[in-house]
């Protein structure tokens, strides 16, 4: 009985046919990932909109408009921006390798 029981227990489980299970599951998983990414983006946009709507930025905007030409003309700021762009491009290039 013991040997017979061991033999029975040791039999592999009967195979279950896929019947589209894997394809349905992957569609669902990818949809869920896209949905979460979209939800995060929408929440971020809503927060940004609220921040602009509620924060006292109107007064700041005139100051920014005055300062913008000076900022754009600054060599240090331009160099920093160029370095950032370079890092971004290099990172994209290396991530493809």
């Amino acid at each position: 009985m013991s040997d017979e029981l061991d033999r029975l227990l040791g039999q592999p489980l009967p195979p279950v046919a896929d019947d589209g299970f894997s394809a349905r599951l992957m569609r669902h998983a990818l949809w869920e990932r896209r949905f979460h990414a979209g939800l995060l983006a929408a929440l971020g946009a809503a927060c940004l909109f609220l921040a602009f709507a509620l924060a006292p930025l109107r007064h700041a905007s005139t100051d920014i408009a005055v300062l913008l030409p000076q900022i754009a003309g600054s060599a240090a700021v331009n160099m920093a921006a160029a370095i950032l762009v370079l890092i971004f491009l290099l990172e994209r290039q290396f991530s493809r390798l």
Partner: protein
Amino acid sequence: MALLAAEGDTAAFGALVRLHQSKLRGFLLRMTKGNGALADDLAQETFLEAFRKIEQYGTGTFFGWLCAIAYSRYLMEARKRKLESLEGAPDLAEDAPEAHTASAARIDLERAMARLAPQQRAALTLCYALGFSNEEAAAAMKIPLGTLKSHVNRGRGQLAGLLAAWKS
């Protein structure tokens, strides 16, 4: 392949699903006493959780990690539905593959399995049918090794008793 999937390779994860779906659904089919629809729901939830938490997959086999998720999902569902409070062993559900293809001995085994406590059913299935070592099975069930061995021995004893009684 699991490492590729952990790095975000969706195609690799899809290949892992195709590779393991049969064994995982078979395991859950036995855990749910042949309820095919529930077993498939649990298998889907298991794979989706694995997809969401793939970066947490560390050591051990990928299938062992899947079984750990599946078993904990099963326990949650059993508590919710009070599956284990049902008295006696149900007949195999009509959508279970065993109902149509299995031998009489196999059907007897599944019926006897359905009478065991879920921990014993899981321990025996992992250790015998799925070929896990005792350590792997204990890790999948998140129980100490001694407890696992005790579930295996008690389950085996009960199964032998049930099958012998039905034979005579």
